[in-house]
């Protein structure tokens, strides 16, 4: 079985996000970039399935700028066998990514597609679901456990207040939650070997996909700075302030 894994280049989670002075977007100048942590979990799961003998090939895919090849190399170092880069310098929306992935699913015919449930930059949580819709494949989202059994996969999903286990027929789409696994670190021997692994570059046009954005980014605001607290002298003063200044009670 072949597994297709999607990965995304995002700002490293250790780095503080800064907004451009004109609020037009997040400032990416000189910022350390890395693989989206949920995507690392997806790669790890695919590699583990290969190590267990369930999968025979792991193909890592990204849609994004040229620099995103760094994240594909990381996926290859973590154990993916080959990589496909759909190169696009446009802002990539969930739908655009899903359309490109859908075409690749058609070309590659994987038994399983694993994606992160969301990327930590835009937190959309859409691509996996859109891909399922476009391909007509069953989906198991927010996976905390994935067990392949013959032509079925059991996916344990993290839902509000508990766990839900669903069984899907393969081929299927799975998106990963945080507790699915603990991804390994890329080791130097693997980083070296990764350079020799094949990496195909395609354009959206090669796939016949239109990447034009359908949403317009109007404004980016950093979280409001917290105001300093004050000490109130009496219960009456507190009630007065909650009513008239904070306007949280009436």
């Amino acid at each position, binding site marked *: 079985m072949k597994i297709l894994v999607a990965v995304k280049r995002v700002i490293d989670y250790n780095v503080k996000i800064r907004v451009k002075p004109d609020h037009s977007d997040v400032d990416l100048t000189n910022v350390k970039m890395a693989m989206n942590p949920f995507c690392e979990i997806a790669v790890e799961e695919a590699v583990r399935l290969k190590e267990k003998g369930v999968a025979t090939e792991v193909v890592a895919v990204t849609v994004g700028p040229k620099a995103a090849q760094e994240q594909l190399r990381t996926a290859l170092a973590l154990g993916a066998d080959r990589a496909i880069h759909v190169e696009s310098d446009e802002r990539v929306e969930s739908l655009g990514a899903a359309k490109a992935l859908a075409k690749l699913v058609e070309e590659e015919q994987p038994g399983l597609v694993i994606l992160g449930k969301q990327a930590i930059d835009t937190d959309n949580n859409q691509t996996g679901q859109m891909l399922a819709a476009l391909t007509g494949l069953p989906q198991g989202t927010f996976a905390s456990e994935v067990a392949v059994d013959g032509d079925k996969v059991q996916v344990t999903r993290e839902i509000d207040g508990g766990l839900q286990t669903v069984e899907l027929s393969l081929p299927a789409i799975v998106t990963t939650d945080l507790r699915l696994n603990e991804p390994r670190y*890329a*080791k*130097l*021997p693997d*980083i*070296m*070997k990764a*350079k*020799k692994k094949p990496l195909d570059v395609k354009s959206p046009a090669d796939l016949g996909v239109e990447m034009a954005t359908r949403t317009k980014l109007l404004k980016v605001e950093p979280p409001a700075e917290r105001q300093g607290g004050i000490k109130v002298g009496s219960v009456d003063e507190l009630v007065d302030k909650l009513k008239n200044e904070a306007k949280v009670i009436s």
Partner: protein
Amino acid sequence: MSAQELFPNLFSPFRIGPCTIPNRIVFTGHDTCLPEDGIVNDALVAYLEKRARHGTGLIVLQVSGVHESARYTSHLLMANDDACIPGYRRLAEACGQHGSVLFAQLFHPGREIMESSDGLRPVAYSASGVPQERFGVMPRGLSRAGIHEIVESFAAAARRMCLAGIQGVEILASHGYLPAQFLNPQVNRRDDEYGGSFANRVRFLEEVLDAIRREVGDRMAVGLRLSCDERDEQGMGQDIAIETLRHLESRLDYASVVAGTSATLGGSVHIVPPMSYESAYLSKESHSLRSDLSLPLILTGRINQPHEAEEVIRSGAADLCGMTRALICDPAMPAKARRNDADGIRACIGCNQACIGHFHRGIPISCIQYPESGRELLYDDLGRAEISRRVAVIGGGPAGMKAAMVAAARGHEVTLFEAGRRLGGQANQAQLLPGRSEFGGLITNLMEELKRAEVEVATQRHVTPQALVAEGFERVIVATGARPYTPPLELLGELPVSQAVALLDGASLPGGHVVIYDTQGDWVGVGVAELLAREGARVTLAVNGLHPGESLQSYVRDSTVARLHDLGVRVMTYARVFGADDDSVYFYHTGGAEPMVVEGVDHLVLSCGGEPVVSPEDEDRWATLPVTLVGDCLAPRTAEEAVYDGLKAAMAI
């Protein structure tokens, strides 16, 4: 030709204050790390006595702290208590008996404190609270009571020196020490009578000199040591030096001229300028000082040979020459020059490794070429062996040459066998690096010593200890050196890999983007980086240590690192090599094991030290033979350990 004709100026007497200096050769003040507990000991007496015995005209003793707050390392002399007087008297007598004149340096470092006496961070005082860059010291500005106390401590220390029979005192206003901190408007931010105008900034020195004269009158020579230019953005230029000397001229008997400042890495290089500086490189500055002054001048700064000193004096750049490292390297230099034996002088090569290098490591002074230096109590005289033996030395590098020379000087019949065409070992490669050509002087000096000791030298001779013993040699010293070490490397491609020292042997130099991997922090890694960058390569220097040239003496290192920076050499630190493929080199970060990858590489060069050519199995084979291993074939180290191994092995026969 007599010395009078060859060196007419160098060997003419000169008067400083009440003292007549018998010649113009000066052993200037320098830390030795010989004293213990802040007082004069046998080792220091023997060290200075030896220089006096061989004809040094003026010996200026290493710094003496005048006040408790002057302890700038844990191992300096202190002159803040009358208990110090007998020690200084011993020195005055030891030097005086040979006709040398002894002066002492009176010292307060101000903020220039490396460590307090217990090794902790110091409480340091300065003109103002302006931070010191090199040691990371934030000083306290002195109170006026504090200033007065320190002024009086200079006077009290001078009185003690006078009582001890020392003939002169020298106040250190050089290298950014406390008096210079008052003079320097970038460090002195005071708004009282000690800060602001030049008249105010020089007041501290005036008070110090007046207090000293009050104590010692004209019975002692009183001098000032000053940097003619501190050679740093944060330091003082020549204008302040000239103004200071002019202003104080009437209070002084002489000035001692140096350059640089202790406060910064770049400025401190001039405290002991390495071999990349020309000989007598401060002559020009000294000339221009002299045109403004009538004060006798001592000039220091890479004056290594008597003919250079003669020229400095003849040209009028100075009246006396500080030849400190020349005398550390060859205490008999004045006597040899006087008897017209310039070829017999073991010339200092300015490597800085065992003189100032030992000081920075907190160990007693020595010399890589002359390990007897600083060890006068052990090796004042090589002596004669009781039984003369036939001795063979295998390997003509520094260890073998020194062993052969010393053994022959002790009366043995010595043959030195060298497999190659020429003597010198790895020093032959060392001298090929930029700014290191003088390192070859090590070989020249040792060859001269071999010749004089009448060692028979046989080159292009491959010999074994077994065969030599069978031939009748009674002792065999093996000094066959090391071969370059190659660390384990994961090679997954065709990237060319070379040994740094192999490149120096004349093979064509790699171009393009060259990565140099250096685990040693010695002269090879930084030297090859400079060489390749000068030849047009783009160089990345990946070092296993914290910074490039980590094991080099800091003045050698910092001047080299500055040149690498100018040449655009990129430096990676904390690197441990893992491997290479066709065009990338892969490293681990030694602090956290994170991978570091250098891409677009054309060549990898290794500078990873050596491994001994003599194996433990060889040792077993020779177990019954009278064999001693010395130098890198025993354990790969530097020329210093090699030469010292040679000395020790030969002294044991």
